[in-house]
């Protein structure tokens, strides 16, 4: 005899629950996690080096955890800033999961850490599926990767709280089309801010540090439309249908992304 058992469970429920617990635990410690996502070589480490140094110079205690399939090169580079750094070797895993992060947070980072930067494994697909308990999820893309990447990797860009364009010093050399990029980002993540940066010239670095420290100080974070879908899907999977879970958060007016600015409109 055959029968069907109804189950309603999010596949990643365990990771999501762990990430939620981490978020609360870290908030209680006064530490904010910033999760950095990009394809390999977009410049996560190169950007993080001066960001850590700037925070240290401002007297703000920060730390970094960098995940790679192999080698401790990134940790060595980041440690030069003077900030506490840890390397996670994922042993072939293409993304970080909340459980791995938690494994490193027993007696680390130091109690006074305001921001813990997590450099995810270089990969634009898989890390987007795993919540790490971060308050700010930053998706980076370098000018050499092509303006269409937000459309090819819609979850990485669609779930970003902040988008960072890197290597702008070579934008002209590679014929980077900023207007098309801005429009593609706004298409999958309307309203998200885009910061243009260069680790070479220092463009955008101070603003980036300001944004990240502001989030640690409690500044509101952009709510991606796609993230609402993730929360809604998780809710549907966990609980029986109940009353409508509140009105969607009110958003200000949005402008159609225009050619006049690289930064997508902020409400």
């Amino acid at each position: 005899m055959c029968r069907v058992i109804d189950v309603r469970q999010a596949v990643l429920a365990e990771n999501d629950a762990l990430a939620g617990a981490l978020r609360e635990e870290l908030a209680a410690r006064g530490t904010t996690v910033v999760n950095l996502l990009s394809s390999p070589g977009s410049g996560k480490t190169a950007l993080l080096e001066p960001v850590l140094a700037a925070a240290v110079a401002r007297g703000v205690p920060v730390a970094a955890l960098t995940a790679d399939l192999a080698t401790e090169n990134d940790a060595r580079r980041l440690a030069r800033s003077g900030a506490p750094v840890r390397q996670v070797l994922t042993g072939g895993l293409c993304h970080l999961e909340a459980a791995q992060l938690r494994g490193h947070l027993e007696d680390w980072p130091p109690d006074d850490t305001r921001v813990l930067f997590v450099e995810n494994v270089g990969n634009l697909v898989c890390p987007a599926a795993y919540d790490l308990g971060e308050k700010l999820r930053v998706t980076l893309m370098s000018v050499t990767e092509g303006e269409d990447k937000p459309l090819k990797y819609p979850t990485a860009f669609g779930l970003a709280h902040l988008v960072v364009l890197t290597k702008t010093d070579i934008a002209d050399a590679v014929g980077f089309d900023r207007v098309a990029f801005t429009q593609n980002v706004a298409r999958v993540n309307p309203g998200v801010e885009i910061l243009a940066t260069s680790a070479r010239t220092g463009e955008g670095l101070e603003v980036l540090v300001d944004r990240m420290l502001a989030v640690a100080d409690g500044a509101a974070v952009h709510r991606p439309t796609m993230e609402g879908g993730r929360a809604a899907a998780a809710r549907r999977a966990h609980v029986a249908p109940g009353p409508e879970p509140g009105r969607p958060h009110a958003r200000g007016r949005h402008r159609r992304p225009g050619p006049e600015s690289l930064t997508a409109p902020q409400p």
Partner: protein
Amino acid sequence: MHELSIATAVLERAAEEARRHAPARVTAVRVRVGELAGVVPDALRFSFDVARRGTALAAARLLVEEITATARCAPCGDDFAVGTPPFLWCPRCDRPTTRLLTGRELEITGIELEEASA
């Protein structure tokens, strides 16, 4: 390729559920995968076939229901398919939407059991 991690998670959840109904044997696991879940159904099926080997669910099939991504435009009340690649703007009003209705699903919806013959 995180589909292998996803397939493993599906197997673990399904095995947990199956234990409650022992000694029935699991013949299939039903999942829903949204268009914007970041998971490729074919890769998931393939990974499931690999991951199930040697487990209690070695004979179970994976039945994937693919969910179209849809959004609602608050001003005009219209529901629309966001398409691939996604366009989270209302095609009627040309304004961004803040409300994704479907498309991020990644969930187990059921398991099919066969009672063990006495």
